[in-house]
């Protein structure tokens, strides 16, 4: 009895604090009037696909009104967790990453959408498989980002490098090319390449292209990718990690101001470049090539993350919410997403044509090959240990990249810590 009381008090107190931050409930549907569903999303003004999906859905379903619940991108995961803990009834929830999706799905916070997911063709829906939780689905993907190699056409031309050279680039070729493209000094220096400070640039690439397991606890498969990156840094062809981190350098600044000739980055960056080109913020003539590979056998393996919509279990308008989720992942939804310059999960030829038909999108063979990788591996495997492993790998990545630990010591420490601290 005493234990129960204590537990209840603790739970109630913590919940009271959490719910203070939560959102309100969605409005009641009028019996014969239009229904309103609320959609939790981030940075509405600067994330064009949200508006494209909402506008498109409302046009197709005038009886359902959609109200965006805009949350700051950086706070999105925390805020969503808090909202759900407080019993929030926001109808549709955007699943920003698969790790959080797995948490919400397995804890019964989302409505099952297994039937709807199984009706989709997995061959056409990139990233759909990532949402399977023990045979069940609780979300449908509408967007799938994966990594490609962006390049500055002008800088390549100035160096006399034909763009066709990027067709089947190995990491060794990439390093040689980056060194040859580096020029200048001080403020006017142009780096051959820019690799952002995220650990995924090195680690997820290595895992995807070697078949290594990021949750496994043995990280020898990182070695070649780290060795190449550290060598690029040492040669001066890559902005030092320490400088990028301490200066909080953004990858957009490095590429869109012409400070870097090459840059491995996700497909989402194309939408930013399109918008910045349109508004005159950048004049960089850019192209997209497949991510470099370990061997030049013509096959492209990259990594990426899908984004999905799910329906809150507490939704008061579950049917309308499900309709929204289904529409977003449908051909009409994917076309709307592609028109916004963002890569949809459903990639049929007409949708790809829509994307490449956008003004400013490089439509050459290289870009089209970049857009059709043979294999897209999930950036981080989903599991209850993912979050803890991610923290350890990030910490050790910092030490290796700043030279605080040798590569061998860093790799050994990653393995040791993951085995000891996560198990």
């Amino acid at each position, binding site marked *: 009895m005493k*234990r129960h009381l*204590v*537990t209840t*008090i*603790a*739970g109630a*107190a*913590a*919940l009271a*604090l*959490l719910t203070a931050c939560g959102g309100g409930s969605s409005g009641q549907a009028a019996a014969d009037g239009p229904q309103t569903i609320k959609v939790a999303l981030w940075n509405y003004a600067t994330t064009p696909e949200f508006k494209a999906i909402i506008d498109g859905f409302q046009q197709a379903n005038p009886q359902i009104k959609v109200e965006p619940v805009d949350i700051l991108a950086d706070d999105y995961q*925390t805020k969503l*967790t*808090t909202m*759900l*803990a407080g019993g929030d009834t926001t109808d549709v929830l955007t699943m920003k990453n698969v790790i959080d999706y797995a*948490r919400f799905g397995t*804890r019964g*916070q989302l409505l099952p959408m297994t039937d709807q997911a199984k009706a989709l063709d997995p061959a056409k829906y990139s990233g759909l498989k990532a949402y399977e939780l023990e045979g069940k689905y609780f979300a449908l993907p509408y967007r799938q980002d994966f990594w490609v190699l962006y390049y500055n056409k002008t800088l390549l031309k100035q160096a006399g490098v034909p763009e066709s050279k990027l067709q089947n680039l190995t990491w060794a070729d990439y390093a040689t090319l980056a060194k040859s493209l580096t020029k200048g000094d001080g403020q006017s220096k142009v780096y051959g390449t820019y690799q952002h400070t995220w650990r995924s640039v090195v680690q997820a690439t290595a895992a995807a292209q070697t078949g290594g397991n990021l949750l496994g606890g043995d990280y020898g498969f990182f070695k070649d990718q780290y060795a190449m990156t550290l060598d690029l840094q040492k040669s001066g062809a890559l902005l*030092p*990690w*320490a*400088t990028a*981190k*301490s*200066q*909080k350098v953004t990858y957009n600044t490095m590429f869109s101001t012409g400070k870097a000739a090459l840059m491995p980055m996700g497909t989402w960056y194309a939408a930013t470049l399109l918008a910045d080109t349109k508004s005159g913020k950048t004049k960089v003539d850019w192209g997209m090539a497949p991510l470099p590979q370990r061997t030049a056998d013509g096959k492209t393996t990259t990594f990426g993350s899908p984004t999905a919509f799910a329906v809150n279990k507490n939704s008061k308008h579950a049917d309308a919410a499900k309709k929204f989720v289904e529409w977003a992942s449908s051909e009409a939804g994917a076309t709307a997403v592609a028109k916004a310059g963002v890569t949809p999960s459903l990639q049929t030829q007409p949708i790809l044509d829509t994307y490449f038909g956008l003004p400013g999108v490089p439509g050459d063979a290289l870009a089209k090959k970049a857009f059709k990788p043979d294999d897209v591996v999930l950036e981080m495997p989903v599991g209850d240990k993912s*979050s*803890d492993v991610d*923290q350890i790998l990030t*910490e*050790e990545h*910092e*030490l290796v990249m*700043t030279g*605080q*630990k040798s590569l061998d010591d860093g790799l050994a420490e990653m393995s040791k*810590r993951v085995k*000891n*601290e996560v198990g």
Partner: protein
Amino acid sequence: MTTPVSAPASGPASGLASGPGPAAAAAPRRVRRRSRTWVGWSFILPNFLGFAALTLVPVIASLVLSFLDWDSYSTPRWVGLANFERMIHNDTFWTALENTAYYAVGHVPLTLCAALGFAVLLNQKLKAVQFFRTALFFPYITSLVAVAVVWNMLLSPDMGPVNQFLRAVGIDHPPGWTTSTTWAMPAVIVASVWRDLGYYMILYLAGLQTIPAELYEAAEVDGASGWQRFRHITLPSLRPTTFFVLIMLTISSFKVFDLIQVMTEGGPGRATLVLSQVIYREGIVQGRFGYSSAVSMVLFVIVLTITMVQFRLQRRSER
């Protein structure tokens, strides 16, 4: 053994009361005292309610949560001391504890000495003294993110003015500061001393202005040097201020979170990871509210113990 509440009324003092008799005089006095008590309570009640709702209840809830396994979704599960056991065997907890102590040992004396030094200096009749006082206080009211950004720029390994200066004076390989496991914590300490010293300097300035000028005049007549005047008059007179500053600095040092979060995020590696960040990561990011609460309880006990020791030492020195 216990003294009855009405005892004073029947004691010698009651005999002095005018009026019909001791018993009749005691009753209105009791009523008056009771009504005064209620007036007193009514003054502190709003504050106490705020304290209870925003501090006391969360602290008690946190204490209870530290014995539970709870992720904010599922039903809380009683796990006894398991969270504390996990903490004892967790390398990250010990690293964070060590870093927190390192930060406090650096931050408290440096801020205290700097604040005292500037307060003594700016208590003189100098030109533009108000300007210097304001300038030193300014970082304290500046946005913390701005402070962190400025220091990150100053300490940038390649382009920062600090390293450019060091290279100019012949140090070819200056440290990476916030990206060096050796120098990240000193860099954070220096930035936080710079940010905090203005506030504590104001406290010392207030303390300095309560010292009677006659004491200094008399010492000067007796031929005491500047150092002797500082040591034998200023320092002892500032003892209550120093005690207050010490308590406040210790508490804020152990609770440090914001500046480190913005400047280094606890890195590189875990070089600047402190207990408050462990609490945040485990609770808010990972959703392990039980473990997070256990760490916060340890932090609470550490701060409470150090504060109590400081109070005891202060009392002993006053005797």
